[in-house]
């Protein structure tokens, strides 16, 4: 068979992985779905959204939830969490964590990490 008559099957990676654009912003207290990376700094474990960018947001956690986050240090994750204390600018405190899963960053779309308010709740 001649090379130039070869049948080429072209399936691009975009067919396998979907992409979309959102902006990350804290909107008070409530339940959030957060994409970020878990980092340890001076023995404190934090969840960081859009690390080292102008839209960086840091979540600290009480000791028991820090224990859970320790399993994911330096991993990109998606976390469903609740905030009960009013965020201070770009700093927020996790009240509780409902779910964590490992996440694959998507350089193809270059979308910033996402932070979505799922359900609003009153601050305490």
């Amino acid at each position, binding site marked *: *068979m001649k*090379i*130039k008559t*070869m049948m*080429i*099957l*072209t*399936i*691009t*990676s975009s*067919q*396998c*992985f979907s*992409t979309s654009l959102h902006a990350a912003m804290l909107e008070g207290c409530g339940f959030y779905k957060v994409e970020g990376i878990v980092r340890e700094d*001076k*023995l404190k474990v934090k969840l960081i959204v859009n*690390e*080292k*960018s102008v839209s960086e947001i840091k979540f600290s956690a*009480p*000791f*028991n*939830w820090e*224990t*859970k986050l*320790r*399993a*994911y240090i330096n991993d990109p994750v998606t976390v469903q969490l609740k905030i009960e204390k009013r965020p201070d600018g770009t700093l927020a405190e996790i009240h509780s964590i409902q779910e*964590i899963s*490992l996440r*694959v*960053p998507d*350089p*193809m*779309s*270059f979308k910033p990490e996402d932070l979505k308010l799922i359900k609003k709740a009153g601050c305490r």
Partner: protein
Amino acid sequence: MKKILLLALFFTQLHAAENVRSNIMILGGGGEPQGNETIFDTSLAKLGNYFNKTKWNNASVAFNGGHNVTETVLNQKFTAAENKGHFTDVNYKQIINEYTDKIGKTIKSGDQLLVYVYTHGGQRKENQTTHSISTTGAAITDTNNLSGGSMVSMDDLKTLTEKAKNNGVKLAIVDLSCHSGASLALANENTCVVSATGPNHLAYASQTAFGDTFVDKMTPGKNLEEIFLDARSSSDDNGMPMISTPENFQITKNLYDAITPYLYSANKDGDKLGNYLLKTAQSDLSCRMKREDDFKRINDLIDQIESINTVTKKVLFWNHVEKTLDLSELRASIKEYKMQQDQMLKALETMNTPDLKIIDHYSMEDIESTPLSRLELLRTDYDKVINDMQNDAVMSASERERNVRWFTYLKSKQTELNNSRPELKRAINIGLDFDKESLRSYSLASQVKNNEKKLYDSFYKHYKKENAEKSNPCRDFVL
């Protein structure tokens, strides 16, 4: 008579070559961490040596900013070039505008303009034709998307390529950054684009990597296609260099998508292999099938190119078919790396077993109930945490005592689970081995890359036979 005609043609071309005015624009050096040096210095110095040996009509440099060694190279090697300052967003756009404006005025039909770009490059974004490259400023933290640093788009060169085409100016864009294959979209009838790697892959900076080798091979009288092929076959990094010739497009259309995962390796600042495997492990069946189809496609390509490169010899009364190109090492290296990746995929799948998702609640008298999945309990390095807590001088003694007690308790629960469910421990160990196996990935990808060069060269020669008489902007751009 024929000899006289050839001689006359030679002198006419020589005279024409002398009349071609050469111009160069040197850009890059961005996204590097603070310090004296950048990873681009060696290549820049080599380019400087070439620059000083040749004659340029217009030469401009906008490179780096803030690194002493790089600045010294610029000052010593590019004295004849106009220094446009640091490689900032503003300077990048200004230098492109200046040269776009010069086309049709001081840069005329038949003249040549070489745009040399050597900096960090990100993967193409959804809204881009090409890709982003790093400018001077903060260091990048992710080689895939250039996050942490500032950047500009290679799309900004589009107007320059169109004006060059409309005015008969020969333009060459040599993009040596990561993911630079995306810049091949800038090619047109008058513009040749050379990239150090494909749109999905990293490029490398070392004396034997494509970027440096390309500069080493730059010789007056040679065309860009010759330099590219020479540099591609003699460089030794894991990139996938490309050139905007019909031959390259024919090869990459067949090969690139399929070979992509076998040139990936794991690295901490933009892990290609880890991201690919995690995506594949989490994806639906179609992506798994594509992986298998791609593997089959590479093997079919190898078979086809080997069958083209055979000769039939007559031995007594029989015809004996003999291979003149043996790609068995390529076949073996891809197979080995695929098996390795398959094992890593299995490890990732194992970590997703329902048993590891079961949540148990742990608490102590002074610590609230903490829900931890078995995966979380097994994958935390409690020995390290306990050691760090014991050696911390900041926290109070009571806090330290409580923390050490808590993590020692969790460590004991981890050991219990390890002993009662050894199969879960094995699953996690496979997962932990993932990191260890990742380290092997660069050498496995290197084996694939070294053998792929033979395949690419052979395909290129095969297609070139079909296009031998045809000109293209890369063949027409003679240094």
